[in-house]
C-alpha cells in the first residue's frame, strides 16, 4: 500500500520536533520526552504531532499495558514512517540551507527579493 507523505507547513517548532525524532528515527517516541527534548509546551506539541501524523510523516501506537494493573494510563508512542524520515531529513536539510548565513538565495523566493539590506 502506497503511503505518500503530504507536504507540511514547516515552522521552527515543527523542525524541533522532527530533529528530536530524527535523532533516533527507528525508536518509538513518547510525547513527554519529545516535549522535554524539543523544549515545547504541551499546547504546541500535540497539534504538531497530530499534523505530522495526518501528513503521514509519523504513526502512533498505544502501549500494550493494562492501565489498571500499571496504575497509570497507557502511553501513546510516535514513530517516524519510512517516508517521514526521508521527508523530514529533506525538510531539515532545506531549512539548514535557508538559515545558513550568507548562503545562496533561491530565485523567486518571496520576501527575499530586492535584497538591498
Amino acid at each position, binding site marked *: 500500500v502506497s503511503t505518500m507523505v503530504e507536504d507540511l507547513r514547516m515552522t*521552527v517548532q515543527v523542525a524541533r520536533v522532527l530533529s528530536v525524532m530524527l535523532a533516533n528515527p527507528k525508536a518509538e517516541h513518547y510525547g513527554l520526552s519529545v516535549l522535554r527534548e524539543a523544549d*515545547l509546551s*504541551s*499546547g504546541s506539541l*500535540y497539534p504538531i504531532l497530530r499534523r505530522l501524523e495526518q501528513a503521514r510523516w509519523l504513526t502512533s501506537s498505544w502501549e500494550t499495558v493494562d492501565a489498571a494493573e500499571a496504575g497509570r494510563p497507557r502511553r501513546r508512542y510516535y514513530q517516524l514512517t519510512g517516508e517521514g524520515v526521508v521527508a523530514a531529513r529533506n525538510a531539515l536539510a532545506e531549512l539548514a540551507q535557508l538559515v545558513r*548565513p550568507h548562503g545562496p538565495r533561491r530565485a523567486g523566493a518571496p*520576501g527575499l527579493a530586492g535584497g538591498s539590506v
Partner: protein
Amino acid sequence: VNGVHQVMALLTGLTVFALGTLFRTEAGTRLERLPLLILRLAARRLPLVMRASQLEEWCANVIDEIHPTSLGLPLTRLVRGCTFALSAWYGARRLAREVEPSAPRNLAVACLVRGWQFSARAGWAADRRGYPRLLCHMIVYGTIGSLFLMPPWLLMSWLAHADMQLLPRLALSVGTVLITVSLLAICQGILASMLEQAACQGWTTYRRQYGLLLADRTANSVALGLILVLIYPSLLTISALASGVVIALACDLILLRLLDRRWKRAGVVPVIPTPLLAQVAPLRRVGG
C-alpha cells in the same frame, strides 16, 4: 486557671491540629487532581472523535510529568502539572482544528485574527515581497484594536456619575488583561522562533523574516496584542484614531476587491508565507 481550663485548652489545641492536618491533606489531594481536572476541561474542547484518546494521552503525560522528578515537592508538582494542563487546554482548539478545520478557534484569537486575511492579502498585493504588509497590518489591527476599546470608552463618556463608570472601567481592564495574557501565551513560541531565526540568520535576514512572519496568524495576534497594549494608555485619543481607522479599513476592503479580480484573472492564489521553508513555495498556480 484551673485544671478544667487546661484540659479544654489541650483538647482545643489537639482538635485544631487534627483539623488542620485533615484540611492540609484534603487540600493537597484535591490540588494534585487539579491538572487532571483542567485536562478534562481541555478535552471538552476537542471533537468527540478524538476526545477520549487525547485525554488518555494527556493524563499519561501529566502523571509522568509531575510524579517521578519532583516527588516531595508539592508546589513544584502542582505548578508543573497545571502549566502542562493549561497549555494543553489552550492548545486544544488548535489541536481540534488539525482534525476538523471548521472547529472553533480560541475566542480571543478568533476575535483578534479577524483582520488577518484582509491585511495579509492586501499587503501581499501591494508588494509581494512583504514590506508593505507591515503597514497594512498596522492599519487593520489599529482598526480592530480600537474597536475593542471603543464600547467601554463610549460607556464611560455617557455615564456621568463616577460610580457608574466603575463597571465599564472594570470590563475594559479585565478585557485588556485577558487579551494580553492570552496573547503572551500564544506569542511565547513565535517570539522564541523569531529570536532563533535572528540568531541563525543575522539581523538583516531577520528583518525580512519579520515581514513574512507577520502573515502568520499567530504572529498577527502578537502584533495586535502589542498594539492593544500601546493603545490602552492613550484611550482618550481613540475617537480621533477611530475615524482614520474606518477610512483605512475601507481602503483595505477596496484594495482586496481589486486584488481578488486581478488574482482571478491571473489564476493565482496567494499562499501566505510562513517562516522559513514557506519561502520555497511562493505562489501556487491554479490549474497549472
